[in-house]
């Protein structure tokens, strides 16, 4: 990084290294070093009552994998992440398509409607679902009023509530990822398919979906990662008995004060996310490229 070659003649003593140094040092000292320490601590031992003892052991990782309770939390988190991502793709795609083909004020309004919730915070949006899902909430009021329901539904503190909550959190990200690629697909391509006799369904399946695949992959990856790391939504909508990986890391480090195990859980979370998204990419890539031949 220190060896810089300017691409223009310039007598300045400023080099790229000096320019980038403050930000790089900040990120290195503030993130890379703490992460390295966290990794080192995940190999330490936790003895109840004694806090943490220096060691070089994998027992925290082994304990996580061996204990059905923790394995269950990881499995549950992965399952929810997969389900949420699938729902986001199905629900998000048509909206992204409408958005990509819209124009003018309607489009600006639609974008604001999708981006605003993104910034309002997960807790506030969870509050919205708490209002919807309560025993006297909107869902039961409308459902009972229209005669769809015979008795009030108990949705709060169920996996369903968490899934709907996280879908709402992830959808804006997914829609925006889809929209970017959909906007790049020329209308004339669709028209050509129509003129050659393809119906809307065939055009979507054979033309639009393959072309939009990069955006679908990036949106799906984002949704999966966001769900794996979710914190506020599962805590507020799932209640105390419904645990996902994010809240687990928090409680191990801050409440149980079991740093080695919390650290190990952190790295298991990141590793699982990395491995699963990579596998997902490979599968989609293989299917996609073989489908073209």
């Amino acid at each position: 990084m220190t060896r810089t070659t300017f691409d223009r003649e310039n007598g300045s003593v400023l080099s790229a290294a000096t320019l980038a140094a403050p930000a790089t040092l900040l990120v290195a000292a503030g993130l890379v070093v703490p992460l390295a320490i966290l990794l080192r601590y995940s190999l330490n031992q936790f003895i109840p009552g004694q806090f943490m003892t220096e060691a070089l052991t994998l027992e925290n990782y082994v304990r996580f994998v061996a204990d059905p309770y923790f394995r269950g939390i990881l499995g549950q988190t992965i399952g929810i992440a997969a389900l949420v991502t699938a729902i986001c793709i199905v629900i998000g795609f048509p909206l992204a398509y409408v958005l990509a083909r819209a124009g003018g004020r309607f489009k600006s309004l639609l974008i604001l409607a999708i981006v605003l919730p993104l910034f309002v915070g997960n807790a506030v949006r969870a509050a919205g679902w708490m209002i919807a899902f309560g025993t006297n909430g909107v869902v039961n009021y409308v459902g009972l009023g229209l005669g769809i329901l015979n008795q009030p539904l108990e949705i709060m503190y169920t996996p369903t509530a968490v899934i709907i909550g996280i879908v709402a959190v992830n959808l804006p990200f997914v829609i925006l990822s889809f929209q970017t690629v959909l906007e790049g697909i020329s209308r004339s391509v669709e028209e050509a398919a129509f003129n050659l006799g393809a119906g809307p369904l065939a055009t979507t399946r054979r033309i639009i979906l393959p072309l939009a695949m990069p955006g679908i992959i990036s949106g799906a990856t984002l949704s999966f990662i966001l769900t794996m790391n979710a914190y506020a939504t599962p805590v507020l909508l799932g209640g105390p008995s419904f645990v996902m990986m994010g809240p687990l890391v928090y409680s191990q480090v801050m409440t149980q004060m079991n740093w080695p195990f919390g650290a190990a859980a952190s790295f298991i979370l990141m590793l699982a996310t990395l491995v699963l998204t990579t596998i997902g990419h490979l599968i989609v890539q293989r299917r996609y490229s073989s489908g073209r031949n």
Partner: protein
Amino acid sequence: MSGRVLLRAFAAPGLTIVLLPIVLVSWLAFFSQEIPSFPPEGHSLRWFSAAFSERKFASGFLLSAEIAALSTAIGLAVSIPAAIALQRFRFRGRGTLGSILLFPLVIPGVVLGAALYIFEVQAEKTTDLPLIGSYAGLVIGHVLIVIPWCIKLLGVSLSGLDRGIEEAAMNLGAKPWTTFRRILLPGIRPGLVAASLFGFVVSFGNLEMTLFLVGPGQSTLPIAIMQYLEWKVDPTIAAVSVVQIVLIGAALLLTDRYVSLSRVV
């Protein structure tokens, strides 16, 4: 055309799920009764004064705004030169540098928080400086999450700026600093505005990492909201949310005037 209607019908669930929670929270803020049961008995504005008089929200709001402003300022100050280095210089390790600066974006909030908290505890043990739950610790954490957004947005802006103008200025004898101040900085103004607003909003809304970094008795607005909601949901918290929604909506509309929102996120 029926195809169009059908398409919009398929698009409707997505929009409903995205907007419904915001709409419900906003509605609840105007309920006259305290319990969030439907239908409302009537409507009232009194929860807004209740929200403003609740000390925890007011102080949380101030702390969040302060931290967000400070960390955005620091984040911008270090990101502007870094973004210039990434966009205007070719050097070995440029790609690596770019990914290091975007790194905070890919680390889960809870892991980032846990790592910083444990680091602070250890650093305090070795140096005797009061770091745990400190203001400085909070700001450093927030600077970390602001930097990637600044790098991204300034990068977009810089890459769209014609290099020829800078070269012309230099050829006419302008020193690098003058070129930076008179040509580059005005040129990337939209990017600067977007990066400031984005950095501010990202820092202001951060919950997961901040949970690990706040000291006892201290809380930012998102933490105050989260803790309140773990206890109950009522029109007071809804009123707090509405104030936040309105402020963020205004910030986004402002950003949209400089950089199209769809290009940013």
